[in-house]
């Protein structure tokens, strides 16, 4: 903020994506600053460097707000003219204006100047936060349902599949399977009936991407599913969503009804001979039901348990029919690929991972929230540039990606460009997009235990490695955090973990040991300290701590009164002491002391 509080009259955004940097966006910023200084306008506005705005072929891109005028191919020679004509006289420079307004950058018209959003790229969440999710008119006015009209007018099903294949889109639920191939497999099956399913059984602790997407823009998901149905030859779609998301369900129900009333769902969509309809099935919130075969069993009315694959759902899915299952975020990408073209989509991202990914940024980071960035963005950019760094000036310790199926990555991986392969190579996974930042105050053994506790609870019990193995691993972790760790525990954890990964039936078991194995790789010394020295450096494992009263004690007696074990002794107004042999390490003396006289070591 500038010291004088003059009103902000304009905001200039310069695209700072890779190809615009190549075209000297940073130098342009300096040129603009010089020009503004000359005109005495420096205090009247802001200049922002944004993330890739997806108009790479026309870069460098410069946007002037208010008005959201987009200039392309800007060179340093154009700067004086833009400043003089547009900012001083209020007359946009028409010869430089480009008419390129994609679906995705609507969001930036409203939010682009906020630091947290400016570095993002919103494709799947493009409408979230800018339209009324309960108004189909709002969606239609932003080219909603045009993608369906386009395929029904001009594209054969195999052309739609070809387009999705060419886009390079991969499953956003976690596994990263090429979406177009999945569509092709399902389309190639001969069957009188086929199903299209949207997997909205979002269960990772701390993840809420799918909920936000459905609550903020339900029609996008519906439109994606209709396109999928047309491509694979299905007339029936099902959204499997957890009952814990009541508002998302209400909005989805309304959206489906509105779409039906407007002729986007039902018989002969938009006057064509294609018919498709969607119904909602509620899940009871079992984590394993996010696994596709368990999800199918749950819809069929059976207990939600996985089965071995193959056959894959594309061959033998719901009620034995070929079934196309994609996750919410995957579906939300589809209308953009159809309207903005696969060629455009594949320009975003890395060689093997195209497009963007939504992350739910949480934990010890200043700005928590939903972050959608192009694949290839580094963890450092997400955590420090967008997330604003660690809270309270603490030190970064690790970032946990992929939820309970993922791993913890230490500082040395911060500059890893994120895609499916790089995260797997670093020992974690993309997963559905949970991202939890961990600082020096958190114990890595405890974190691993937290995630394993979750998967152990959610294990369906069908296969022995997952059911018994995670239980045994959790027992070992629990005793380590309680100071009862034994020599050889680390090796046992590694052996069990690798075994569970290899022998489990479904993805839940195959990935359950990841949080433990990755912390063992990256933070092995913390495990060793817990086992050998009975110490927790983060001070989180309470049973490993010693509570000691220091010389700040004034003898008020508060700790003595609250101690449930009678471990504190001392006369009024004289320093008290804690009897270590009686102390049960409940920490109540530490909490109640007003004088900072209780240390935990």
């Amino acid at each position, binding site marked *: 903020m500038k010291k004088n509080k003059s009103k902000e009259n304009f905001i200039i955004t310069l695209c700072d994506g890779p190809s615009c940097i190549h075209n000297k966006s940073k130098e342009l910023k300096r040129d603009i600053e010089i020009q503004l200084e000359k005109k005495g306008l420096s205090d009247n506005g802001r200049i922002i460097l944004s993330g890739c705005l997806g108009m790479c072929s026309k870069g460098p891109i410069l946007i002037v707000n208010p008005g959201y005028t987009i200039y392309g191919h800007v060179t340093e020679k154009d700067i004086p003219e833009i400043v003089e004509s547009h900012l001083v006289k209020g007359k946009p420079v028409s010869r430089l204006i480009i008419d390129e307004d994609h679906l995705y950058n609507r*969001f930036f018209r409203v939010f682009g100047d906020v630091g947290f959003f400016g570095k993002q790229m919103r494709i799947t969440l493009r409408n979230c936060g800018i339209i009324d999710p309960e108004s189909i008119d709002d969606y239609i006015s932003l080219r909603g349902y*045009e993608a369906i009209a*386009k395929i029904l007018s001009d594209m054969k099903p195999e052309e739609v599949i070809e387009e999705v294949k060419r886009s390079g889109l991969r499953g956003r639920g976690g596994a990263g399977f090429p979406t177009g191939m999945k569509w092709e497999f399902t389309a190639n099956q001969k069957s009188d009936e086929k199903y299209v399913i949207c997997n909205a059984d979002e269960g990772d602790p701390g993840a809420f991407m799918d909920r936000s997407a459905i*609550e903020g823009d339900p029609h996008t998901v519906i439109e994606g599913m209709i396109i999928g149905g047309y491509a694979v030859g299905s007339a029936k779609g099902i959204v499997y969503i957890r009952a814990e998301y009541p508002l998302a369900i209400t909005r989805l129900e309304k959206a489906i009804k509105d779409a039906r009333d407007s002729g986007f769902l039902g018989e002969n969509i938009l006057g064509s001979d294609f018919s498709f309809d969607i119904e909602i099935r509620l899940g009871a919130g079992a984590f394993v039901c996010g696994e596709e075969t368990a999800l199918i069993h749950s819809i069929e009315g059976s207990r939600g348990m996985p089965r071995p694959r193959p056959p894959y759902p594309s061959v033998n899915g719901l009620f034995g029919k070929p079934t196309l299952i994609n996750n919410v975020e995957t579906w939300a990408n589809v209308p953009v690929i159809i309207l903005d073209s696969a060629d455009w989509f594949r320009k975003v991202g890395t060689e093997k991972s195209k497009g963007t990914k939504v992350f739910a940024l949480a934990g010890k980071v200043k700005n928590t929230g939903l972050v959608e960035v192009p694949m290839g963005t580094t963890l450092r950019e997400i955590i420090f540039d967008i997330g604003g760094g660690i809270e309270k000036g603490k030190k970064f310790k690790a970032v946990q990606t992929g939820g309970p199926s993922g791993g913890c990555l230490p500082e040395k991986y911060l500059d890893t460009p994120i895609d499916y392969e790089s995260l797997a190579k670093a020992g974690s996974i993309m997963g559905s997009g949970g991202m939890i930042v961990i600082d020096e105050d958190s114990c890595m053994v405890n974190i691993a235990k937290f995630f394993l506790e979750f998967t152990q609870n959610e294990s369906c019990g069908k296969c022995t490695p997952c059911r018994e193995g995670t239980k045994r691993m959790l027992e070992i972790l629990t005793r380590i955090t309680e100071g009862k760790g034994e020599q050889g525990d680390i090796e046992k954890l590694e052996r069990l973990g690798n075994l569970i990964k290899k022998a489990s039936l479904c993805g839940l078991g195959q990935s359950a040991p990841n949080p433990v194995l990755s912390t063992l790789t990256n933070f092995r010394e913390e495990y060793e300290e817990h086992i050998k020295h009975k110490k927790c450096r983060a001070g989180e494992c309470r049973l490993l701590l010693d509570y000691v009263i220091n010389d700040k004690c004034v003898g008020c007696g508060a700790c003595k009164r609250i101690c449930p074990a009678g471990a504190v002794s001392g006369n009024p107004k004289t320093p008290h002491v804690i009897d270590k042999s009686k102390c049960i390490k409940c920490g109540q003396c530490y909490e109640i002391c007003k004088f900072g006289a209780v240390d935990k070591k």
Partner: protein
Amino acid sequence: MMKPLDIIRKKRAEAINRIVGKGYLSTKRVYVGMATCEIAAGSKEVMEVFKEAVNKGLTDVYLSQKGCAGRCNLEPTVEVIEEGKIPVKYGKVNEEKAREIIERHLKGGEVIEEWVIK
């Protein structure tokens, strides 16, 4: 027969007409975040304040709900959008702040800088 692309063009024109009919071209458009997370942070009460103001005769304002933009720790969020001006994003809005936004910004035209998300 009309092609699906012609039908959607017609439907879009109708949709835009309906939105305009609801007052979209008002001087100020106000969007209140109404996703589960926003509601948990208190946006329902904030929405009520705006609704009440409109019911009591606040004119030239188009009031709408919106989903969550994803700025969790600054919720509830409210946007005030005016043609030809930079969209204003307010964070951590409560009932009291909502009343002040109505008085100072919607009626008085003043952007309350200290609450603006940047």
